[in-house]
């Protein structure tokens, strides 16, 4: 029965495509030996945040790797995603980057259909053995440094409260929040980090409201894990300090009141992936890049940058030193989350000098060929005032 229905559909398709003068995709780029890389974005490039940063990476790739690139933006994560990805695969692209968590299943499905095209998904947890990988960077390392700056600032201002505007209580967000809080407690051991979950990645109004509520609670510094510059602006308007996220433009609207921003610098890693693919040495894997790859950055501390005026001079050498060690690969995400760690209810998470595993950091379990997490990222470290909404 079902098969008859399906054949009916197929016949209908065939008939209508005949009517529509079926020319098999002759328009797709036929310029043979050019290496083509395509990107699928969930948002518009103009979001000034997540997608903007990926597009900067694409432009870097075009400039530095000598490949042709295209992008499709504003793609919803349902029917549209699979269609858009398949369309790019059919147009003889050699590599396709899909840059939103919700693109995971469609990327996997299309990768299976096009074994000669390489697919890199940012960011998720699936891969295959031939042509489909996932990729992420250790933003937590930069968040740790940003926390140290925030703690130093609060100490200098004689405040003990720092506010964090957070999107959703998922492992990735919790990891970055915890790393930030651990950084704060380095420079301000008795500081408290108040949080507001806004349950949205991008909602300028609610982001700003959450920041205002934190400012009313006495926060001296506002950090954001969401995509708009709203919280940073709200902090500036209240005469306090902000820390931005996602792209290096995060501070652009209020540079004098913005301490720093932790931002993505996808270009070098993209170029490296493409180079390996062209040389034939690339293997699908769970790629997770540390600061030494250049994938994550701290505004004011990268080459050619100077720290913002609001960063207390006393802490600058400390940050510069640790930042340099991170860039050399001497201090990694596993050092950020080194024991002893306690959660904010007093329970011991990690004993002295114990370390988390990659699966713990990402909260991964029940995946083929990877161990399960045991201390799965689902707790808030000491110093954070707030809870993770119950599951």
């Amino acid at each position, binding site marked *: 029965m079902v098969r008859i229905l*399906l054949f009916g559909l197929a016949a209908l398709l065939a008939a209508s495509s005949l009517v529509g003068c079926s020319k098999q995709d002759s328009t797709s780029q036929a310029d043979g030996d050019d290496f083509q890389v395509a990107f699928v974005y969930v948002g518009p490039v103009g979001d000034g945040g997540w997608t903007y940063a990926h597009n900067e990476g694409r432009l870097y790739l075009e400039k530095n790797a000598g490949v042709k690139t295209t992008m499709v933006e504003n793609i919803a994560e349902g029917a549209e995603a699979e269609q858009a990805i398949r369309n790019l695969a059919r147009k003889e692209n050699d590599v396709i980057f899909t840059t939103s968590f919700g693109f995971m*299943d469609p990327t996997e499905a299309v990768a299976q259909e096009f074994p000669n095209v390489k697919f890199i998904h940012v960011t998720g947890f699936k891969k295959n053995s031939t042509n489909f990988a996932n990729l992420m960077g250790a933003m937590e390392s930069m968040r740790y440094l940003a926390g140290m700056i925030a703690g130093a600032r609060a100490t200098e201002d004689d405040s003990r409260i720092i506010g964090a505007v957070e999107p959703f209580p998922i492992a990735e967000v919790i990891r970055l929040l915890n790393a930030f809080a651990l950084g704060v407690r380095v420079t301000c051991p008795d500081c408290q980090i108040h949080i507001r979950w806004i349950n949205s990645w991008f909602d300028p109004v609610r982001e700003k409201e959450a920041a205002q509520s934190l400012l009313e609670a006495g926060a001296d510094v506002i950090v954001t894990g969401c995509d708009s510059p709203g919280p940073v602006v709200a902090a500036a308007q209240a005469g306090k300090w902000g820390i931005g996220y996602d792209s290096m433009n995060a501070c652009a609207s209020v540079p004098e009141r913005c301490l720093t921003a932790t931002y993505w610098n996808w270009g070098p890693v993209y170029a490296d992936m493409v180079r390996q693919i062209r040389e034939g040495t690339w293997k699908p894997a769970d790629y997770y890049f540390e600061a030494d790859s250049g994938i994550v950055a701290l505004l004011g501390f990268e080459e050619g940058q100077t720290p913002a005026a609001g960063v207390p001079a006393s802490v600058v050498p400390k940050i510069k030193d640790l930042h340099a060690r991170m860039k050399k690969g001497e201090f990694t995400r596993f050092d950020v989350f080194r024991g002893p760690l306690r959660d904010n209810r007093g329970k011991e998470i990690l004993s002295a000098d114990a370390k988390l595993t990659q699966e713990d950091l990402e909260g991964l379990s029940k995946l083929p060929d990877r161990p399960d997490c045991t201390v799965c990222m689902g707790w808030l470290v000491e110093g954070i005032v707030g809870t993770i909404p119950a599951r």
Partner: protein
Amino acid sequence: MRLRVEPRLVPSRLVRFGAPVTGLLAGLLLSAGMLELFGISSPRALAAIVQSGFAGGLYAISDTLTVATPLILCGLACALAFKARLWNVGAEGQLFLGAWAATGVAIALLPEGTPGWLAIPAMAAAGFAAGAAWGAVPGALKARFGTSEILTSLMLVYVAAHWNNYFIYSAWSDRGFQMTRLFPRAFWLPRVADLASIWPGAAGLTLHVGFFLALLLAAAFWFVMFRTRFGFELKVSGISEKTAHYAGMPVKRNIVLVLVLSGGLAGLAGACEVAGVVHRLQENFLPGYGFTAILVAWLARLNPAAIVLVSFLLSGLLVGAREVQPSGIAMMLQGIVLTCVVAADFFSSNRIRRVP
């Protein structure tokens, strides 16, 4: 010389069909001009849109009909309510709830080993029921208190979105990720690509049987509207509620019933999207079909056959426009074309006459 706008008493056939076509052509012409302004070759861009949306072989048609499926269902949902002059603008929310309920049945209610012939109808029924319940709320409020269904149905869209997010991020979250787990393979709506083992050409054709359901319901819509008493009562209420009341028709009951059915159709669209396309519930998987459907219903003049046609054309435009990047330009093109078509529609029921 003065000009006066006056209604056409009996629009001629030529005008009724000529106006939208003229509007479409005008829209394309204006779009071409805009493209040239942006330095994009308009013949190439328009050819790419047509190629990718309509004429690019099986893939193009399959992609377009996949997008058309929820548009047809939500278009019918809107048209049903609009026939009775009930402004259900919350199809988007009813769609969300339908997707939610179908997901609930698939991952929380039915055991993993349930056969597909049982699970799929159950998911569809749950989707319909949830959408219907979401439509019943504005319906009941309207019938009992005279509350504006425009406001209530619209506000409930946002409630539905948050409701879904709670389940996606918390109650049904897959290992803490922002999605539910995948439905068992047997629960997926059959799609053309399933034939790939017998016919290799089918690989990648994602059109699913939900499309048949949409066509079937379009036929059912026609039957109910033009061949049943209920349909007649709806049209009378739509023209004059007082007349309907005076004629002894159950006006209040019909208000609720219409919004229940309308919500149910939209809910079914949601069930089809999760069962036929995404195979799990996740965030941000719907690009606003429920709102686009309002436009579909109007452009089709609430006629079910026209809803199918308009959905097909609009879907082709949506799919094809992805060829034009950045997406802002594509959205502008869609806006120009639709505005022109809607504007032309005005002239099919009105005319401008010179007054001496």
